[in-house]
């Protein structure tokens, strides 16, 4: 540490004292340096985020085919076409159902896992790693893995006595939920574990002295103190589920009978598969963006109300 101690800043007055000439150019230099360091971020955000957002807005009100390109404004035809699409409302309904089911199961399981591995020792270390390993896989890789795991040709799960994992709409939904729970439970467990470890032992001690049982401690001590971690998990999980794509594209391809088409899959299909209509896909993707913003605003609001 000896070398750094010689670098310790002199007292404020020794540099440019406020009010003396020289302090203003210094500030300007600092601001310039700040902008120079922030410039790459700003460029990326501008070219790959702001410009596309503006462009998608323009595409959504234009007749814009995949191969024909821009053929002029046609507002609001894309939006009415989207709402009239025969797959639109089934896709909305399915996405909502999938989101609710996934979020409830995933968070309940993640919380249970977090409580299970809360203490730090070698055994829980092994458990934590086991639960977390699937999170290292990509969702697409995990979906490919479960695709083989579920196929009648190669499945090792025959002993479960399930006829078909993906053959009926219900089976396809639950099989996909199982895949997603397997892939993400460890990740949410880790987030909740951070929250659990933020609760001080004194609180539990106080609850024990007051004669609280295990369930009461959980219900009236752990859960309320875990609220912000649970909120973060809920927001992440709801957002991720609303935008589900990979798992359904790979596992079910939207089948059977288009029963598992999600909204984002519909966006993809409109743009690149069948309809080849970028304008319509842009319109639907703007509706998805608005829905996502509304849902997240409501979630933030609900949280704030609860906290106050």
């Amino acid at each position, binding site marked *: 540490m000896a070398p*750094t101690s010689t*670098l*310790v*800043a*002199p007292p404020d007055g020794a540099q440019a004292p406020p009010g003396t000439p020289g302090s203003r150019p210094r500030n300007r230099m600092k*601001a310039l340096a*700040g*902008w*120079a360091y*922030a410039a*790459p*971020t*700003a460029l*990326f*955000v501008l070219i*790959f*985020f*702001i410009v596309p957002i503006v*462009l*998608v807005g323009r595409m959504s009100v234009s007749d814009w085919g995949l191969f024909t390109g821009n053929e002029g404004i046609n507002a609001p035809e894309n939006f009415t076409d989207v709402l009239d699409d025969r797959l639109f409302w089934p896709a909305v309904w399915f996405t909502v159902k999938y989101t609710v089911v996934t979020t409830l199961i995933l968070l309940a399981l993640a919380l249970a*896992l977090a409580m*299970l*591995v809360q203490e730090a020792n070698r055994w829980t270390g*092994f*458990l934590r*790693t*086991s*639960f977390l*390993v699937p999170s*290292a*896989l*990509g969702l697409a*890789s995990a979906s*490919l*893995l479960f*695709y*083989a795991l579920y*196929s009648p*040709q*190669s499945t*090792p799960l025959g002993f479960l006595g399930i006829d078909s994992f993906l053959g009926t709409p219900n089976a396809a939904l639950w099989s996909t939920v199982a895949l997603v729970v*397997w892939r993400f439970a460890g990740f949410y467990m880790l987030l909740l574990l*951070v929250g659990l470890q*933020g609760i001080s032992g004194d609180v539990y001690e106080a609850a024990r002295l007051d004669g609280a049982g295990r369930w009461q401690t959980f219900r009236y001590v752990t859960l309320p103190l875990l609220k912000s971690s649970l909120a973060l998990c809920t927001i992440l999980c709801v957002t991720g589920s609303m*935008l589900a*794509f990979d798992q359904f*594209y790979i596992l079910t391809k939207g089948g059977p009978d288009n029963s598992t088409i999600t909204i*984002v899959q519909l966006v*993809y299909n409109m*743009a*690149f598969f069948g309809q080849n209509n*970028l304008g319509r*896909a*842009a319109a639907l*993707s703007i509706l*998805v*963006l608005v829905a*996502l*913003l509304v849902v*997240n605003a409501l979630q933030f609001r609900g949280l704030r109300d609860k906290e106050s």
Partner: protein
Amino acid sequence: MRALLIRTPQHVLAGGLALIFLFPLAWAAVASVSPQGGTAQTDGWGFGNYVTLANYQAGVGQYLVNSTVVSVLTVLFTLAVSVLGGYAFAMFSFPGRNVLFLVTLAILMVPYATLLIPLYVLLNQLGLQNSLVGLALVLTMFQLPFAVFMMRISFEAIPNELREAALIDGCGSFRALLHILVPAVKPGLITVGLFAFLAAWNDFITPLVLISDSDRAPLPLAVANMRQQVMGIVDFGATQAGVVVLAVPCVVLFLALQRHYVRGFMSGALKG
């Protein structure tokens, strides 16, 4: 004694759960080398499925190279941009700082699909269609909210004395960054780099939309396409082999860096 009675069922339950979580990965690894009908490995154990994979279209080697190039470029771009950006947001005040930071975070709020539709058109105009560099640039943009946020809080967590010491005259801010501050934020760098690598290696919908030339497909896309090579008949052996090739680097990296990853994550989450 009573503690033991409570503990034992809990241990059995937890151990069982751990086995359920490990089972699919273990099964894929074993099944990929075991004999199965309808695959390249019909009798005896061996690597027939990996041979199928190696000879599929452009060959697994080409897809591995594609994936590696995209992942490495994404990690480099993400680290460079987020270190400079995080440094700017943490240490300097400049007009527009808060707006830029919030807009960067806002990337998180916009669905991939909403951005990929216009990016498909935009990259065509920039001459970056079907290009691995274009793909890496887009993947970097998706990483920025997390990466810039992480680097900002990492720089802000550096003790004040070190920050001031690094910033006084005689040591330009860039040299201070390079020699004093970057080593101090190493856990953050590892977390950001690991996340960027895993995201780029595993991303599916971005190359699905942006890459139409199958020779330039990254590995997840190639393995997914491989299932459709013969109508109706899927070579599950080759799919399992593909999953193993996809999973191995992720699992190895994850296990090797687990300590850093969890620590970086926890310190970040606590401050966030």
